[in-house]
């Protein structure tokens, strides 16, 4: 082995572990390729968290033609440089990680292609690659082009693709796509493993498709040096391929979506990539795609080098709840009953954490097929059963029961009961209904469209084997109505109700936002329909499958705290709704509050909170001018630990905040 080769291997193994971010850096979106979001840093602790101060801040307003209010990036930090996407055109910036000084910026003005993109705005971030000599940044534009930049200068790498760019609308599973208008993109980051860069696909919101025919999602790997296509994994199997028979009535031939829009994880030692696949076209009506439709809503492990399927597990059969798989599978080495298991744990919108042996796909704890409620929507063919993990227990509320309704006072509970009289409620997997004025107007359910856990996913502590995940309690209205005249001739229903009408397009940047359509429009005297907590963080011991602790995350919203009807009531911290990513360090779990709310100083803003990771006890909080909108990361530089959080909200444009201790 030459010295150069040895150095290359050392660099690769340091950067791409499953045991957290090493060397004080943060080289990939999830800290490592297993998305643990863990860094073994201990300068910032419970003893000093409150004294954190802003080291620098970077506003993203002028990275596009207008400010962006939805900055979801987790930046990377390698070798003293911090890299992030930002702005409405998804520009890339390199900053001095100690000072925030702008080192370079790269932006693509994609014109009409950018305007037509189904996933706009700044996305979740980017990927870094090095062979020990050369360094590259890779990201996907809103218009679905993979760009490779020289990490030192920001210049496109001329030897990659065509002048630094691979057009991802070409060679997408043998489909001839309109390069400008084809509705496919990606807002998650590429993931680089070995010398491959893996790319998924995202589409327009699937609640109101224009047609049952849609672009098929597929996962592809490209050579990170040249941009040459290495392999394609078809998420919709074609005739003769495994799983094709699960698409009844030849629905494989026209159905689309089934993309991987969430983060992909990789175990380089096992040589496997873990693909969290979304559901096929139409999020709430499956009449045009009867069957279990593999690999919809399945976790699929494929060979990293070839893309060949090794194992899969379908989490939802014939889904009609938009559960998808919304976030990174988390690689976790655990010990169950004395047996060491290389596991993969999958948080979900439905508040189940599914845990598998990641080499074989065997569930670590039994997953049982249980009968589920059947619906009555014309043309629908429901799955009789769905998989239920026996461990861990669901980490947030699912479905809806009267007991879940607001209970601050008997009068509020009574009003809530009256309010939902014309709606259907039930346990998890209660299907949507055709909306009728006389009832049912819709099915009300938590942990579906109003995801318990969405794209930020969770974190894992490789030292203690505890997984941390944020979730929210949001009620969604699952109703179906005919599409507006002429809007979708071959689609029988769109999501909507007789009260709200059919849902319209998800709009530009759809599903990059914090809220889902038709979520939680039912309120009782201006208060949430359900009782608190509205958002929580759970700590789950993956050696035992038990939930160790749960805390409400986020100060009680002002509208609850100051509500005239609740005066005099002692209401514990309720938490707040939203999508929140967590970070784990040597002693702390760190996460910002979602949404604006009351802060101790009285200033409008939001708090970055720390919890003792063993007990969940408060371990400090520091003020931010706006809510956390991207998941936090941390690194060490010049002897100082930094915490970086992307913040933004409807009334505050995107900004990166860097915290460190004084002195």
């Amino acid at each position, binding site marked *: 082995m030459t010295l150069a080769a040895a150095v290359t291997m050392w660099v690769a193994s340091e950067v791409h572990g499953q045991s957290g971010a090493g060397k004080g850096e943060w080289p990939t979106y999830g800290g490592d390729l297993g998305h643990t979001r863990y860094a073994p840093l201990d300068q910032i602790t419970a003893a000093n968290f409150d004294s954190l101060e802003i080291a620098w801040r970077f506003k993203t307003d002028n990275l596009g*033609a*207008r*400010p962006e*209010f*939805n900055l979801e990036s987790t930046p990377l930090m390698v070798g003293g440089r911090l890299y992030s996407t930002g702005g409405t055109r998804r520009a890339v910036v390199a900053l001095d990680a100690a000072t925030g000084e702008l080192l370079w910026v790269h932006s693509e003005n994609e014109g009409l292609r950018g*305007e037509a993109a189904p996933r706009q*705005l700044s996305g979740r971030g980017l990927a870094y690659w090095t062979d020990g000599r050369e360094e590259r940044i890779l990201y996907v534009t809103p218009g679905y082009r993979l760009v490779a930049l020289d990490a030192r200068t920001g210049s496109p790498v001329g030897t990659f693709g065509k002048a630094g760019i691979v057009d991802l609308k070409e060679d997408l599973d043998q489909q001839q796509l309109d390069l400008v208008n084809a509705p496919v993109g990606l807002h998650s980051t590429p993931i680089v493993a070995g010398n491959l860069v893996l790319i998924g696909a995202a589409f327009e*919101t699937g609640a109101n498709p224009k047609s049952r025919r849609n672009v098929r999602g597929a996962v592809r790997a490209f050579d990170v040096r040249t941009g040459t296509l290495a392999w394609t994994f078809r998420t919709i199997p074609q005739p003769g391929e495994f799983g094709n028979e699960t698409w009844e009535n030849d629905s494989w031939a026209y159905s689309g979506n089934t993309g991987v829009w969430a983060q992909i994880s990789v175990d380089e030692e096992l040589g496997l990539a873990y693909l969290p696949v979304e559901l096929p076209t139409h999020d709430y009506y499956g009449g045009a795609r009867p069957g279990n439709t593999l690999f919809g809503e399945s976790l699929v492990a494929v060979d990293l080098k070839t893309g060949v399927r090794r194992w899969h597990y379908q989490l939802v059969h014939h889904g009609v709840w938009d559960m998808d798989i919304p976030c990174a599978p988390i690689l976790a080495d655990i010990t169950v009953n004395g047996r060491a298991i290389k596991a993969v744990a999958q948080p979900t919108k439905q508040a189940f954490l599914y845990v598998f042996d990641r080499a074989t796909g065997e569930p670590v704890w039994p997953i049982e097929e249980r009968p589920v409620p059947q619906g009555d929507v014309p043309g629908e063919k429901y799955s009789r059963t769905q998989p239920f993990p026996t461990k861990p227990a669901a980490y947030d509320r699912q479905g809806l029961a009267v007991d879940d309704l607001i209970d601050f006072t008997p*009068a509020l509970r*009574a*009003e809530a009961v*009256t309010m939902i009289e014309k709606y259907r409620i039930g346990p998890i997997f209660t299907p949507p209904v055709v909306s009728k004025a006389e009832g049912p107007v819709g099915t009300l359910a938590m942990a579906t469209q109003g995801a318990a856990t969405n794209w930020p996913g969770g974190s894992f502590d490789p030292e203690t084997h505890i997984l941390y995940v944020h979730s929210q309690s949001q009620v969604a209205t699952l109703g179906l109505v005919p599409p507006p005249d002429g809007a979708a001739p071959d689609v029988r229903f769109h999501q909507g109700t007789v009260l*709200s*009408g059919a*849902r*319209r*397009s*998800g*709009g*530009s*940047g*759809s*599903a*990059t*936002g*914090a*809220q*889902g*359509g*038709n979520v*939680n*429009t039912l*309120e009782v*005297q*201006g*208060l*949430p329909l359900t009782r608190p907590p509205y958002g929580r963080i759970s700590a789950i011991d993956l050696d035992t499958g038990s939930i160790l602790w749960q805390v409400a995350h986020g100060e009680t*919203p*002002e*509208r609850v705290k*100051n*509500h*005239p*009807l609740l*005066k005099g009531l002692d209401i514990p911290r309720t938490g*707040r*709704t939203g999508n929140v990513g967590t970070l784990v360090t040597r002693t702390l779990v760190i996460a910002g509050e979602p*949404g*604006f*709310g009351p802060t101790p100083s009285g200033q*409008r803003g939001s708090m970055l909170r720390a919890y003792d990771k063993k007990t969940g006890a408060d371990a400090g909080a520091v003020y931010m001018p706006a809510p956390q909108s991207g998941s936090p990361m941390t690194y060490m530089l010049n002897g100082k630990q930094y915490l970086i959080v992307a913040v933004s*909200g*409807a*009334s505050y444009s995107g900004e990166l905040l860097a915290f460190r201790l004084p002195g």
Partner: protein
Amino acid sequence: MDRCTRRIGMSLLVAAVLLSATLAHPRAQATRTVWDGLYSGEQATRGQMLYAERCARCHGDALAGMESAPALTGTSFYSNWEGEALEALFERMRMSMPADKPGSLSRAQNADVLAFVLKVGGYPAGAAEMTGQAGTLSQVTIRMYRP
């Protein structure tokens, strides 16, 4: 107490609480709030038409929001805007909306849309229209509950 009576009772209680708050703090706020009749009914009607054409595609017919388009009414709206100057919301609209063609509405048109948003939020109309002139809304605070 039957359910109907109970609801009336609660409404009276809310009214009493609000009235006592008003009496206790007759001019607690030096600045004006969105409760002060800032727009005319006619202006809100014009705004409604503009909203349907230019805003509803993303924010929804009921202003409830969807995906990345935030709600313009209800609790999540207040989470975003409670305590902010109305000028900030107006400027947010003027500079970055509609998302597919930012800055394409005039000041007067933005004021009309804002009037409709206030109307849907339950804030009372007044005699005069909002002009949308720079700075005129900087002393107006967004408040969910009547001060």
